[in-house]
C-alpha cells in the first residue's frame, strides 16, 4: 500500500472536523472523496498535505509518517480549492520561485508551461488571469517536483465547462502517468468519469468506500444528492 491511514482524526467541534478514519490507498488509484459541505473532505486532504496537524491517528506514505514534512517534500502535492499563488507576480515568476525553492531545474518550468498550455500567459500577472487559468498554474506548480501523490480540493469548483474539461484532461493525463490522486468533488458526472474508487464522508465519518459502480447503485448516493 502506498498510503495507510489509521484512526486519523481532527476535531474542530462536535459537528465538524474528521472523526477517526482508517483506509488504505494503492499506487495509481484515483479516488473521489464525496460528501456535503462540512463533512470533513477538505480537512482530510489538508491533514494529508500537512497543512493542519491531526489530533489523533497515523498517516504513512511509502512507509514515511506524513508528519515528517522534510522527508515528504516533493512526494505529495496539494492543490487547494482557491489557488494560492503570489498574485502580484507573473505565471513564470511563480513557477520559477517554487522551482528554485524545490531545487527543480528551470527547464521543468518550461515543460509545465507547455504541458498546461500556459506559454501565452507566462508574463501575465496571476491576478489578471481567470480562475481556470489560475487553477492550471496551481496544478502546474504542484507538479514541478513530480510528486507521486496528488491531493486536489474541488479542482473544478467555479470553473466553466471548457475549463472543467481541461482540468479533467489534465487529471486523466496525470493518472495515466501513474500518479495516485485523491480529489474532492460535488459533481456526480465528474466523479463517474474520473474516479476508480469513491469514499463518502458524512458528518465527519467515512460511511462508504468502494468502486464507482457500487456507489452509484447505493442508497448513499441517492440520499446524498436527493
Amino acid at each position: 500500500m502506498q498510503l495507510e491511514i489509521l484512526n486519523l482524526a481532527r476535531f474542530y467541534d462536535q459537528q465538524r472536523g474528521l472523526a477517526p478514519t482508517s483506509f488504505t490507498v494503492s499506487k495509481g488509484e484515483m479516488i473521489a472523496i464525496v460528501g456535503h459541505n462540512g463533512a470533513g473532505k477538505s480537512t482530510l486532504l489538508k491533514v494529508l498535505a500537512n497543512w493542519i496537524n491531526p489530533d489523533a491517528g497515523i498517516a504513512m506514505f511509502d512507509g514515511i509518517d506524513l508528519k515528517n514534512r522534510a522527508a515528504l517534500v516533493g512526494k505529495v502535492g496539494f492543490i487547494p480549492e482557491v489557488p494560492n499563488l503570489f498574485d502580484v507576480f507573473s505565471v513564470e515568476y511563480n513557477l520559477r520561485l517554487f522551482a528554485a525553492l524545490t531545487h527543480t531545474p528551470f527547464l521543468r518550468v518550461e515543460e509545465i508551461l507547455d504541458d498546461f498550455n500556459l506559454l501565452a500567459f507566462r508574463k501575465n500577472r496571476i491576478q489578471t488571469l481567470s480562475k481556470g487559468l489560475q487553477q492550471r498554474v496551481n496544478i502546474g506548480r504542484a507538479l514541478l517536483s513530480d510528486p507521486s501523490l496528488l491531493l486536489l480540493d474541488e479542482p473544478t469548483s467555479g470553473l466553466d465547462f471548457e475549463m472543467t474539461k481541461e482540468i479533467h484532461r489534465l487529471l486523466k493525463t496525470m493518472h495515466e502517468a501513474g500518479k495516485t490522486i485523491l480529489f474532492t468533488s460535488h459533481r456526480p458526472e465528474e466523479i463517474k468519469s474520473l474516479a476508480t474508487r469513491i469514499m463518502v464522508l458524512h458528518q465527519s465519518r467515512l460511511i462508504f468506500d468502494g468502486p464507482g459502480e457500487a456507489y452509484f447503485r447505493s442508497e448513499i448516493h441517492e440520499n446524498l444528492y436527493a
Partner: protein
Amino acid sequence: MMRNILILTFNDLAIAFRNKTFLLILFVPLFVFVSLNLLDESGAEASKVRIVLVQHYAYAPAIIQSIMAAKQHIEVTCVQNEQDGVRLLKERQIDGILTPHDEATGSLALLVLKKDSIAAITIMQNFSALQKAAEGNAPDWISSIKSLHRGDVQRETLPTWVLMLVLLIGFIILPMQVAEEKEKKLLLALLQTPIHELQWLIAKVILGMVLIFIAVLFLHLLGSFGPLHLFDYSIFILAGSFCFSACGIFLGFLCRNQASARTLGVIFYLPHLLPAAMSDVSLKLTAVAPFLPSYQLYKPLQSILLEDGQLASMSFDWLYLIGLGLLMFYLSYLLMKRRWLM
C-alpha cells in the same frame, strides 16, 4: 540554507515593492522632513520646577534664600558634584542645574536638556518673578543658559521620527505582510517546499530590518542629519529593527487576515510611540515610558543623537532589545509549527 534565505528575502523585497510598501517607506520620511520645516515652537506653561544645586559651589546667599523661600514653585535638590546633576538631568528626574556663572560674579548659569523646552522657559519665568520680588530691577540672576542636547530643533525631534519609522514597519507593515501570506495560504504553499520554518522567519526578519534601514537612511539623507557616533547609532538601529521586526512577525501570527493585523498593529503602534516620544514633555509619561520596549530604543537614540551618549553605557538597552526580539522570534516559531490560524 543561505540560498533559500536569500531567495525568500528577495521574494519578500519584490513583494514589498509590488504591493506599494516601498512608497510608504519613502513617503513617511518625506512627510517627516516637511513637518520638521513647518515645526512651531511650543509655548510655556507654569508648573513646579525641579532644580539641582551643587554642594561645594559658592552661590550668592540672597539668591539661595529666595529659592529656598519659593518652595511652592521650585523644588530644590542638592548633589555632591555637577556630574551627579547631569545624570539626574539625563534621567529626567530634574529640570535644570544651577551653577555659579564663571564670568559674571553673583549671577547663575542654568544647564537644561533643551534651551527651548517648556522646562527651561518655566525655570526662567519663575526666577524672573522671584528676582523682581527680591531685588526689583536688578541684573538677571540667570545670565547664561546651556543645553545638554546638541543640535537644532529639527535634530531634537529626530529620535521621535526614527522611532516612528521603526514602529511603523514593525507593528503595521510586517504584521500585515505575514497575515497576508497566511490569509492567501501562500505560507502553506511555501511550506510544501523544502524550506524550513526558521528560514522563512529569518527571511521575514531580514525584510523588516532592510525596510527599517532604508527608511532611516532616507530620512538622514533628506535632512542631512549625521549621527554623532555612527557605530553606536547603527548598533541600536540594528537591535531595534531586529526586536520590532520579530514583534511584528509575532503579531502577524496572531491574526488570521490583513485587516485584523492592521488593527492589532495600530493598537500596539500608538501606545509604543506616544509615551516614548512624549516622555520629554510629560512627567506621567516619563514614569510610564520605561516599561515599554520602545523606550529602550528611544532613550539610547536620543542619547546618541543629542547628548553625545555612547554604546558602552547602554548595554542594558540593546541587550533588552535583542532579548525581546529573540523571545518574539521563538514564539513566532512555535505558532508557525502549530500552523496557528492558517
